[in-house]
Structure formats: structure tokens, C-alpha cells
């Protein structure tokens, strides 16, 4: 309905292959970015930043990373939390052990640590598929849970693996206030989302999807399964690792291994399923959904004067997530992102139904 595409013809492949080929989409995304970068920092409250926006951005980033592995390359992972933890503890170690280590460098090194571990645990994917691979990633989860709890070296010998960071700054600008934290996360997320999109629309992205959709056919046209799968693991765990750094450094400040437990892994997987497998946008939808639903369940009954205990709310959240997972897998395996694109298609064809 809002689309006016007449005259938006493409006279070059560069124009045809841009990320948002339709003018109205470019305007919309521009407006969204303007709101996120300018309007929100002006009016957002501390609660909004701390409880909603910052966790949303970071989890969206993690889901983005996971989606590359699961949604684009079709390799399942139940150990996302582990890769986040590796990122977080990796960056922590670089930060405390090397004097003057800048935050961004620590963050990227944290991501690289996660990449190494990710590739290591991804190696089994060359021989095993599906359920068996899920096992390998679970092994990563349990192993890192244990390692950060029990191996003192990783946590600078702090008790129970609990560590903290303080006085973060980027290029001399302190990342202390909620707005600063928010903006820092926003920039990181935008940069990674763009790079992820670029990868998925290039040769490597097509290789991932080819492996996902039909691995034998992919091999027959010359795609090396090992390269495709391991790069997916590497890219995915790098992004997830960076998200882990943000989660620990920016969101939590002080944390222990439990922050990256198997529950976190499942939560991220759910985001990807609900948000939409194989879609950059889906990661954001999924994260928003999973952040917002519990808050709504907490608030809405109160507005109607129905008190729900915290426990009941959390059980309800479990049930709703569980039911939604099944629902989406049955009805729309490509999740909210697919619903969004269907809606968009409807708008483009409006008033016609098809």
C-alpha cells in the first residue's frame, strides 16, 4: 500500500543487487536508524536502556551469529551460550592480562577466541549431522560451563568463576552511562548486521545455503563441505563471542559462568526459530519477542488487577515459548521474519491479494 515502485527500474547490476533495492525500504531503514541513533538516546529512560534495549541489542547480535550457523548453513547448535562465555572470558583475560588493552581490541580478541573454540567443536560437523552434531555442541556447552567454573586461570583465580570489569572506555569516551552503553552496542550491532548481510549475499553465503538445502548437490557443483561448514562455525561463533563480550562487559558488568548456561543456549535458539531461520531481520524480531514477552506477561495482568507471582509468570513464559516454538515449526518455519516479508509482499501488491 505504501509502495510506489513505478520508475524504480535498475540499469546496473550494482543497483539491482543492493541490500534494499526498493526506495521506500531505504527510506524506512534510514528513518529507523535515525530514531535509534538520535531520538531514542534523547528520550529513553534508564530502565528502558538497562532492561530492554541493551539486552535486546546484544541478544539480537548473538541470535544473528547463531542464525548464520543454524538458519543459513543448517548446522544445529545447542552450545551458543558456551561460545558467548568463551568470548566473554577470552576478552576478560586479554583485558586484565595485557596492560592498556583497548576495549574494542579485547572485544574482537574475545570474538576470535570464540572462533577458535567454535571451529574446534565444529569439526565433528564434517562427519556427523543433525542430532549428532547437536550433541557435539552440547559437549561444548558442558565443557565450558565446567572449565570456567573450575579452571582458575580463566577467571584470574576468582572464586566461583565470578569476575567483573569496570571503567570501560572507547577511544577515551567512557562507556558508563546507560545511553553510552546503548549507543556502543547499537554501533557494534549495526556493523555486524551489515557484515553478516554482506556475507549472506556473497559467494560464501550461497555456499552455506547450498550446504543447508542439499549438501550432496552442493558438493557436486564444487563446494567443499569442510570449508563451508567451518567458515559458518567460525563466523557464527565470532559474532556470538562478541555478543558474549558485550553481554558480560556492557550489560552485566560482573558475571559468573551461569550467565552463559545451557538455558541461554536454548533461549538463543528459540529466538532464531521464532524470529526466522535464515534471516538477518529474524534475529532482531526473535530477540525483541523474547525480551518483550516476559515483560508484557509481568505487566499486563497487573494493569487488569490480576496479580501473578514471579514464578507463575516465568512458568507461563516457558509454556508460551514452548508452544510458540512448536507453532512456528509447524505453521511457519521461517518465523516472524517470514510473516513480515509476507506482510510486505501484501503491501506491495495491495489492494490485490496475490
Amino acid at each position: 500500500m505504501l509502495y510506489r515502485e513505478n520508475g524504480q527500474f535498475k540499469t546496473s547490476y550494482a543497483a539491482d543487487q543492493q541490500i534494499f533495492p526498493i526506495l521506500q525500504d531505504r527510506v524506512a531503514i534510514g528513518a529507523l536508524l535515525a530514531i535509534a541513533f538520535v531520538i531514542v538516546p534523547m528520550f529513553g529512560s534508564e530502565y528502558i536502556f538497562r532492561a530492554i534495549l541493551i539486552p535486546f541489542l546484544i541478544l539480537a547480535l548473538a541470535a544473528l551469529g547463531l542464525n548464520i550457523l543454524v538458519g543459513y548453513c543448517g548446522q544445529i547448535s545447542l552450545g551458543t551460550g558456551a561460545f558467548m562465555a568463551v568470548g566473554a572470558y577470552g576478552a576478560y583475560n586479554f583485558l586484565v592480562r595485557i596492560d592498556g588493552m583497548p576495549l574494542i581490541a579485547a572485544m574482537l580478541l574475545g570474538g576470535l577466541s570464540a572462533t577458535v573454540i567454535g571451529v574446534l567443536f565444529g569439526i565433528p560437523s564434517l562427519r556427523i549431522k543433525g542430532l549428532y552434531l547437536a550433541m557435539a555442541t552440547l559437549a561444548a556447552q558442558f565443557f565450558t560451563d565446567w572449565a570456567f567454573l573450575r579452571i582458575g586461570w580463566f577467571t584470574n583465580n576468582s572464586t566461583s568463576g565470578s569476575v567483573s570489569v569496570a571503567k570501560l572506555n572507547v577511544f577515551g569516551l567512557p562507556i558508563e552511562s546507560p545511553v553510552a552503553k546503548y549507543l556502543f552496542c547499537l554501533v557494534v550491532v549495526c556493523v555486524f548486521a551489515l557484515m553478516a548481510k554482506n556475507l549472506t549475499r556473497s559467494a560464501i553465503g550461497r555456499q552455506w545455503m547450498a550446504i543447508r538445502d542439499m549438501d550432496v548437490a552442493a558438493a557436486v557443483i564444487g563446494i567443499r563441505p569442510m570449508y563451508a561448514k567451518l567458515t559458518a562455525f567460525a563466523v557464527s561463533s565470532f559474532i556470538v563471542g562478541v555478543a558474549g563480550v558485550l553481554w558480560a562487559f556492557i550489560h552485566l558488568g560482573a558475571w559468573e559462568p551461569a550467565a552463559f548456561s545451557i538455558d541461554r543456549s536454548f533461549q538463543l535458539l528459540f529466538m532464531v526459530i521464532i524470529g526466522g531461520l535464515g534471516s538477518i531481520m529474524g534475529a532482531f524480531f526473535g530477540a525483541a519477542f523474547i525480551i518483550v514477552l516476559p515483560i508484557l506477561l509481568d505487566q499486563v495482568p497487573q494493569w487488569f488487577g490480576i496479580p501473578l507471582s514471579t514464578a507463575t509468570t516465568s512458568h507461563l513464559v516457558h509454556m508460551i515459548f514452548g508452544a510458540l516454538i512448536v507453532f512456528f515449526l509447524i505453521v511457519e518455519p521461517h518465523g516472524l521474519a517470514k510473516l513480515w516479508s509476507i506482510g510486505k509482499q501484501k503491501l506491495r501488491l495491495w489492494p490485490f491479494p496475490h
Partner: protein
Amino acid sequence: MMMNDMAVAAQAAASASGGRRIGDVVLDLQNISLRFGGVKALTDISFNVREHEIRSIIGPNGAGKSSMLNVINGVYHPQEGRILFRGQERRKMEPHMAATQGIARTFQNIALFKGMSVLDNIMTGRNLKMKSNIFQQALYWGAVQKEEIAHREKVEEIIDFLEIQSVRKTPVGQLPYGLQKRVELGRALAAEPTMLLLDEPMAGMNVEEKQDMCRFILDVNDQFGTTIVLIEHDMGVVMDISDRVVVLDYGKKIGDGAPDEVRNNEDVIRAYLGTSH
């Protein structure tokens, strides 16, 4: 001017290679036997394929035709026998290595990448020719974009060749069967193979679609000089377009030769009358 690049290239190729002039043996299969556990899929099969020819493999269902193709491009590894490709004996063979040697194929049950568009499916066929690395691709700057565009141009020529312009951005899952078969051929062609293995490219098509597909196969063979190994059930088509035919039955070779010889081979007649084909 790009609109006739392909035609010009084809003409050049033709004058160089002589188009349909059949050349030397490029693929030589000697005494191939393949087993799955206790089941014998292929038994002691030998035949060869000459450059630029259209070589058909026929036989009743379950004769081992698809297994034969899978052996040729390295999906299955025969327990016995030798395979010589361009005079080199193959040792350890993985499917993606066949691709690097210029062997492309299509599948009996369409094996397209369902989640991708026609364009992306065919683009995937060019992956071996794409050289940029993953870091460049993440930035999508300069060289990467140039590379994407250069390959897009090639892919568009294939789309034009196969007359599938109207569906280039459609997800392949939404296409009718006949078009999917065409897209799969397009993906194989995108690799610019010297040898093309086609597994029942016309199965399930109506007469008109078969005619189109025949025309494409002949055009490919003719314009690009591509050697074609073809499995097909439609005897009319096979006899029309093949240079030589090999006949399999229960994993054994029962006939080999020009279409007319094979047509009159008694074993072949028996095999075909003996089954409900």
C-alpha cells in the same frame, strides 16, 4: 556490446573445437563394480565417453544408471575397477573434485537449493570461479562487488539461454517441475563444464517441455562442445539425440553402441520386454 557475447563466444568455440566433431576418449570406465553392503549395484561395467559426444545410459528401473553417474562424479566409490579421466587414473575422489575437473551434473530427483532464488541457485554454480575471500565478502567492497557483477552477467546469459527470464527472482520451490529442471541445468551450465551428466532431465515432462529440453541439450552440446552423459527413459529422445548408447540391466552392461545397433540388440529387446517398463 554484451547482448551477443554468448553467441559470439559460442561461435569462437565452435570454430576452435569444430562444434560437434567427436574427439578422443575423455572418460574411460574399466571393470567397475559397486556394492552397498551385500547389494551389488554395478557389476564389472566398462565403457567410455568420447569428447563432444552425447552418450546415453539406458535401462529399466533399478538397472544402476544413477549409480553409474554417481561413480563418475565421485559421490560413490566403486570397490573395483579403474576410472580414467583425460588419461589420468583417479584415486581418492570427492564430488567437489569432479567439479573442479569440469564435470557437472543434474539429479533425477531435482536437487535444487529450495530456499534460494533461481538467480542464486545458478550463481552457486559459479562458486568455483569466484576468488574473493571471506573478509572481502564481509565488506562487499570494490573487488567483491565487481566479481559478483561479472558472474551475474554470465548467469544472466544462461538465464537468457534457457529462457527463464520471467522467473529469475522467484524462489525455486515455487516453480513448476519443468522449470525447476531447467534451472538445475542452468546451475550445472554455470560451472562451464566440459562434461555434463544429466540424470533423467526429461522425466515427468509434457511433450512441449521435452522438446524444449532436447533443444537446450543439443544447443549446449553444439554451441559449447560440452560432452554429455545422459540417462533418459524416453526411447524416442535417446535414439534421436545420442551418438552412442550403453544399456544396463540389473547392474550389468548388456549393450553398447550407436542407437541403431542397440535398438536391434537382442539382449536389450529382451530386457525391455521382460520388464513392465
